[in-house]
């Protein structure tokens, strides 16, 4: 449901003021990101690894399960607090933010919504506390945007199941302890045969592929996961058989708000780094901040970043209020990712030749931004989601 018509959504008046605790979350995340994460960002990108100690610290502050209730090991905050925290972490380091957003939005969230109490006790609690790390195994080598075309199968095995197939592009694939896995139980039923499972990733029958070499977000690991006769109990089934596709799509709706927050964080990094550089760098006898050619770039960057942030906050506020937000999340991700890619291109341009060097952050932003147009649904899929909403089509 789009919110362009008055009265179609209820965010609670046109209120942009953060609540006391949201402001405190933002402040805490900003201070932590600035003092603890930002100084490590260049090394995380260069070494393609995030120090375990940093993730432990994030976990101890409650960042790995922001929206899970406290009785399930989480921080018990709302979806707006999550995007506020994510923007700050992403602003400092996109790789670290990705690990956080996947655990929060793609793993804790579906466990909270569809998990049994036993699954919540066994998996959600340690995941939300950050004692375990999760991953979301949906994409396959031949099924990306067309997720319903998946070939991974789940076959009945007594009371349990046997999983067979290969999952692709799995964020946290190497480092995760728990995987949410989607598999086809009855190919004839197409998307209505898909089921979701929550699986101990260290169990037998699961092989982690090599780490992919990526353009950006290099600190987060991305791998294949191969399931070869992987036996799981009946208690691994998340929700019901046939509900898997719905679980996948609704989880990605929430995930997209996180990716929109990533894009906003990267765009803000581009803006802040560009402004700082423009105040220092001189050309033609003046600071380049005094050149209109630079000012116009920065003004556009600031405006677009703010617009992207507002779309992201709106989608999060809708999610927090329990209202439908599928199209709004798609709009936020579509727009914010476009803004991030453009802002990062202009950031490199403001830095000039130095922007092309790894000694400055601009080229990292440029590489980190692109993924936001690709994962958790490409920009083209976002448009499909928005158009489906315009024509009142249900996608699952």
């Amino acid at each position, binding site marked *: 449901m789009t919110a362009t018509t008055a009265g179609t959504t209820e965010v609670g008046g046109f209120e942009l003021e953060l609540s*006391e*605790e949201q402001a*405190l979350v933002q402040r*805490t995340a900003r201070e*932590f990101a600035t003092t603890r994460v930002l100084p490590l960002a260049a090394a995380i990108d260069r070494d393609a690894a995030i120090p375990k100690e940093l993730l432990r610290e994030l976990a101890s*502050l409650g960042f790995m399960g*922001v929206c899970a209730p406290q009785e399930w090991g989480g*921080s018990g*905050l709302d979806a707006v607090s999550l995007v506020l925290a994510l923007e700050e972490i992403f602003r400092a380091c996109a790789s670290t933010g990705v690990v956080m957003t996947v655990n929060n939005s793609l793993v804790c969230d579906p466990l909270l919504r569809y998990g049994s109490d036993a699954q919540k006790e066994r998996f959600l609690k340690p995941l939300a506390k950050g004692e375990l790390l999760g991953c979301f195994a949906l994409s396959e080598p031949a099924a990306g945007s067309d997720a319903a075309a998946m070939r991974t199968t789940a076959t009945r095995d007594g009371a349990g199941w046997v999983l067979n197939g290969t999952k692709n592009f799995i964020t946290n694939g190497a480092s995760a302890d728990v995987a949410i896995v989607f598999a086809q139980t009855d190919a004839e039923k197409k998307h209505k045969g898909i089921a979701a499972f929550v699986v101990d990733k260290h169990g037998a029958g699961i092989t982690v592929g090599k780490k992919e070499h990526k353009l950006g977000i290099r600190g987060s690991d991305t791998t294949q996961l191969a399931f070869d006769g992987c036996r799981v109990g009946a208690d691994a089934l998340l929700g019901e058989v046939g509900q898997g596709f719905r679980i996948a799509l609704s989880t990605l709706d929430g995930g997209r708000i996180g990716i929109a927050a990533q894009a906003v964080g990267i765009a803000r990094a581009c803006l802040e780094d560009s402004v700082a550089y423009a105040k220092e760098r001189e050309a033609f006898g003046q600071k380049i901040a005094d050149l209109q050619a630079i000012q116009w770039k920065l003004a556009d960057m600031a405006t677009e970043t703010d617009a992207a942030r507002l779309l992201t906050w709106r989608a999060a506020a809708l999610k927090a209020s329990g209202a439908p937000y599928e199209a709004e999340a798609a709009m936020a991700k579509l727009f914010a990712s476009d803004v991030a890619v453009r802002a990062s291109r202009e950031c490199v341009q403001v830095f000039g030749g130095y922007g092309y060097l790894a000694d400055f952050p601009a080229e990292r932003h440029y590489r980190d931004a692109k993924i936001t147009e690709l994962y958790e649904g490409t920009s083209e899929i976002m448009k499909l989601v928005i158009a489906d909403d315009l024509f009142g089509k249900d996608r699952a």
Partner: protein
Amino acid sequence: MKILICLKQVPDSTVRVKVAPGGKDIVTEGMTWAISPYDEYAIELALEVKDGDPTTTVSVVSVGPARARDALRQALAMGCDDASLVVGEASGLGLSRALAKVVMEAKPDVVLCGKQASDDDQGFIGPALAEALSWPHVPFVTKLAGASGAVEAWRETEGGHEVWKASAPVVLTVQKSAKEPRYPSLPGIMKAKKKEIPEREIVSLNVDTSGQTLEIASLEPPPVRGGGKMLKDGDMAAIAADLVRLLREEAKVL
């Protein structure tokens, strides 16, 4: 152990402060406020005692404008047990008397103050509060331990540290230490949200809060820093000689 921390909300250290028209105050509109940094170290010091002995209670109090509630909320989110706000303007001896009244009601074993507030940098309130209470006072403390009816307080000194023993109740002022103040955790923020912060007017304390004897005559921003100078001519030895000459003759620091 029962610890009470006197906390002041000050302009955030990352904010660029502007002098207000009239030259006697700063522009506070749109200001980002924060807990005074030394008070944050006091909170950390108290919470470390609590980490070691969970029966410890840590309370915070602030005398100031209504916005100081945010600073108290942050202290609760960091892990303090309770907070209260006294709304009103007071400074110097008047403020010390107001705090002394609050302290006498709360009956803590230890009162902690930052060694100075980062806005006016006077370092006055801690010792003045001890005086108003007729309690002992140990300044510039970095660590604290309880010891039957007394406390042991560490003070950093040149090349080592001293341990002072004081009878409780006692006022300690806290110095920056190697242990950085903890961040509020997100569950801590949710816990803090549920706590009431009782508020009362300063007049309800029935103490003499006048006693204002100091007035700011004028405030000026520091002079704009001149650009640096690059010494490039000649070899290392010549540049070094040049540098020494400039430090002595121009900068006059040698």
